[in-house]
């Protein structure tokens, strides 16, 4: 085996280190520009208030006095890591808030401290944010049906957002299961309540969902319809909700599909050359003897 340049590996390694250093510098630079307040508004305010009461998660007024600062940094960075490590406060908090896990914040430790400083400062002032507003009205039966169509994507959101079922599953599907990239939503309404669901639909705190609906917000009616659909899903009797195993179906479909493909390849190239050309020459010579 040959290799073009003996020094290539060394250059590659140097490039790697240099790029890593640039990334480190860029991260530090970005941390200075995005303030604690901006990060709080972007990532936290859908579920938390400061002195405005409980939303999806707890009111954060005076959180710095109630909890250890470094514990908070760990919790905000990855609450589920803390829960899995068996931290008693983390486990109790998760249970208190309906087992709704808080998404990991894609922030550095310094950025998280910046957010905590902002919360500390804002705790002294007037209330920030109010308890999540309840939907203006309950969804009608027609709107629930429309919510289901929006969820699955057979009707498109007005502003062009993707269907919920691209990433979310509810265990009552008749035709096809929803995606499994994000949380299963069968009991989301039961756990979060109308205001919680609405808060997430209005300003998604999850980065993947925020990107998907960036510049394509749901309209008021759509939020009511989707919320109503999720509520109706949660209220259905257990027996109605059949879990679906689409992974194996997809695998089976793929195996069937690839068998067909291999058959097509064999058919299209059935006259391909499979033997050396001189084989015919040899055979001819034997015959002529």
């Amino acid at each position: 085996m040959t290799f073009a340049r003996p020094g290539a590996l060394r250059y590659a390694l140097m490039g790697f280190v240099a790029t890593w250093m640039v990334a480190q510098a860029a991260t530090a630079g970005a941390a200075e520009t995005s303030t604690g307040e901006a990060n709080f508004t972007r990532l936290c305010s859908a579920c938390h208030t400061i002195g405005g009461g409980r939303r999806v998660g707890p009111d954060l007024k005076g959180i710095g006095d109630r909890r250890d600062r470094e514990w908070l940094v760990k919790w905000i960075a990855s609450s589920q890591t803390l829960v899995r490590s068996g931290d008693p406060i983390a486990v109790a908090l998760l249970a208190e808030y309906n087992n709704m896990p808080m998404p990991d914040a894609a922030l550095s430790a310094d950025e998280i401290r910046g957010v905590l400083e902002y919360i500390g400062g804002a705790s002294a002032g007037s209330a920030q944010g109010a308890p999540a507003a309840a939907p203006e009205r309950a969804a009608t039966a027609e709107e629930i049906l429309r919510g289901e169509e929006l969820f699955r994507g057979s009707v498109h959101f007005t502003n062009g957002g993707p269907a919920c079922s691209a990433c979310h599953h509810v265990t009552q599907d008749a035709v096809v299961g929803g995606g499994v990239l994000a949380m299963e939503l069968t009991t989301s309404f039961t756990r979060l309540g109308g205001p919680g669901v609405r808060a997430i639909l209005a300003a998604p705190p999850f980065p993947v969902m925020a990107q998907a609906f960036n510049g394509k917000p749901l309209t008021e009616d759509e939020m009511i319809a989707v919320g109503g659909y999720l509520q109706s899903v949660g209220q259905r009797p257990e027996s109605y909700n059949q879990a679906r195993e689409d992974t194996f179906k997809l695998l089976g479909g793929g195996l069937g599909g690839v068998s067909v493909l291999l058959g097509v390849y064999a058919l299209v190239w059935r006259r391909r050359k499979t033997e050396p050309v001189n084989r015919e020459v040899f055979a001819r010579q034997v015959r002529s003897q």
Partner: protein
Amino acid sequence: MTVPNVFFFAALPYVAMFLFLGGTIQRYRSRGFQVSSLSSQFLEGRALFWGTVPFHFGILVVFLGHLTAFLVPRAVLAWNGDPLRLIILQVTAFSFGLSILIGLVGLMIRRFTNPRVRMVTTRMDVVLEVLLLAQVLLGLWTALHYRWGSSWFAADLSPYLWSILRGEPNIAAVSAMPWPVKLHIIGAFVIFGVFPFTRLVHLLVAPLHYLARPYQRVMWNWDRKAVRNPATPWSRARPRNT
């Protein structure tokens, strides 16, 4: 934003682009005749068929599928609005993905077991095949375990890729993706970056004009007896490449 995320999703794409462009130009200028993927069909043909055909048809369809979701995400989302169409798209894409896997494994077995093919194998061939194998396995894993990738690719990864091309990478969503998806994206950038240093360069010189060109009939138009006679001078029918 953490350092690994910035490195892999904001810096690596640009490094890959630089290597792709710089490396390709350098290779073409310095070793232009090596801008190809040294064919080994002369050395071994039977096993090659069951490797190269499933591999190439698979990767053509899967690559064009990714490209479509990147270029026209809204059309893909609209197509996926109907559950039946979504299933057809996903199962088709997954079948062609399996076709890549079968072909690639066949090619790798052939490369490592056939002494003739092993003689013409370079280290970068091995590196590339291992990278491609990892990439295909991660892609199939993603398709199975994080289903409806065609929809969430269009909704999240297409905007991310466009943000890179605009020069203002927005890595919030991609940073929050599950690790197999992240590895698949990193793998794509790595393959893009090593492109000019591997046999992948044959993509740039694919003889696409053969598809549109009228076929050529090659005729043996000499007096065979005269040609085979050593006394015949070359000047009568000298072979020429024109």
